[in-house]
């Protein structure tokens, strides 16, 4: 779908976040970017979204830049707007009216299991529900590429496991390509078809690990040999990457 070729990012402050980053993203895969914090994962993701430009190198899109959905670490909802209006935002910015958008918004809310919450305000929701709204907002335009920047890092373990499963179900239903940033080895292996392990200063891909198990995956998968092996591989690669730095 896209390739990052020799991408460097040097901020105005002089800090180099990425150095010689090479990464291919395949159509339809679930790719995790795994690495310690500060290694440039967010920077890479923002660059793919077009929110930041490479200092050197290039991002090449195989068939042009598709519709992109973005989910941040915090739910990043507009607190003054209802759940409905928050999910409406991407449609509204393309010029669609409330009435025109209504069916799509309801469908997106149903995808994330929030039917019946359209009128609620973000303040009235739990952290997990806010994150669901955020995901519904990212999905409402049916993006071909979904970018997620540590979306579940601030949630409790139980909510996080639940959302992991829901995310896999959504991925299967919608068939979108997902790039998922995390610093959790277990989360990356559970979710992904491929894990790219980042090393820091400057950030680049140190290792890539394929996780061959097909979807759907469930708690059974967490107990499988394949899962354990992939976790060990990813963990070793992570330690190696951190040792180098």
């Amino acid at each position, binding site marked *: 779908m896209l390739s990052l070729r020799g991408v460097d990012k040097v901020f105005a402050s002089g800090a180099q976040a990425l150095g010689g980053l090479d990464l291919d993203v395949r159509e339809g895969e679930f790719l995790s970017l795994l690495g310690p914090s500060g290694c440039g994962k967010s920077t890479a993701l923002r660059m793919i979204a077009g*929110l930041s430009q490479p200092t050197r190198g290039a991002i090449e899109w195989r068939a042009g830049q598709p519709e992109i959905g*973005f989910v*941040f670490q915090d739910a990043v909802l507009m*607190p003054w*707007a209802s759940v409905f209006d928050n999910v409406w*935002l991407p449609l509204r910015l*393309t010029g669609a009216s409330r009435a025109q958008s209504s069916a799509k918004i309801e469908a997106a809310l149903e995808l994330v299991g929030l039917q019946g919450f359209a009128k609620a*305000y973000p303040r009235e929701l739990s952290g997990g529900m806010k994150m669901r709204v955020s995901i519904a907002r990212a999905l409402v335009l049916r993006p071909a590429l979904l970018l997620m920047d540590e979306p579940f890092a601030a949630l409790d373990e139980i909510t996080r496991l639940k959302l992991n499963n829901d995310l896999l179900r959504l991925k299967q239903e919608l068939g979108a390509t997902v790039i998922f940033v995390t610093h959790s080895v277990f989360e990356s292996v559970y979710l992904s078809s491929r894990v790219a392990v980042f090393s820091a200063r400057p950030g680049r891909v140190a290792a890539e690990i394929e996780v061959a198990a097909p979807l759907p995956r469930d708690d059974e998968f967490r107990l499988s040999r394949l899962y354990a092996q992939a976790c060990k591989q990813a963990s070793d690669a992570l330690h190696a990457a951190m040792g180098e730095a």
Partner: protein
Amino acid sequence: MRRSDLADYALPLAVFLAMLGLWEALVRINDIPPYVLPAPSLIGATLVKDWDTLSGSLLVTLRITFEALIAATIGGVALAILFARSRWIERSFFPFAVVLQVTPIVAIAPLLLVYLDANTAVLVCAFLVAFFPILSNMALGLASADHNLIDLFELYKASRWKQLILLRLPAALPYFLGGLRIAGGLALIGAIVAEIAAGSAGQGAGLAFRIVEAGFRLNIPRMFAALALISASGILIYLIFTLLSFLLLSRWHDSARERGL
């Protein structure tokens, strides 16, 4: 009634009434003459007796206060939006706003009276003091929109206009309302100070002029009556904007969150 309501309303009211009672008692027991210190009951009676004159002046003062406030709101919000658009405009003009803010209005009023007629000068004074809190709060509010949301708007290629309407203005609303509450009180003070400096008489006279005039005539009860009306106006303005904040923010902003739920 909840306990906190009782504490919020009943206690200050009880203290206020007790003070009035004490005042009344002191005046009566010591037989203090009204031209030294009038009793609350006499002030009340004066308020009723002179209502025709005083209410006219009250309206004048209130009108100037609100006209100044409306002008300051329009001007302050517009300038803040302009500042948010361009750093250069902000850098060029913000210092002047600060200069106006730090120069005491009492010192500016006589100068304005040289160039403007009394009513306009009073209005301009009230405007000048109300303008700055709205400008600075609004500018802060516009700049305080969540940067992740700004990224999101950029991702969806929103125009700057849409970003302003859908993101920056709503994000600035709590700050703006805070500024408005301060500006409301200041506009009244500005109007009063300028009126005293102007000393304008006749039908266009506001409450401040009534105080000065009553002072010349040693009509102390009327001075107090006019003062009471000014205080009441200030309280009313504060309550109006507090209520407005609550109505606009209670659904979503923590500042208007009901306690103890």
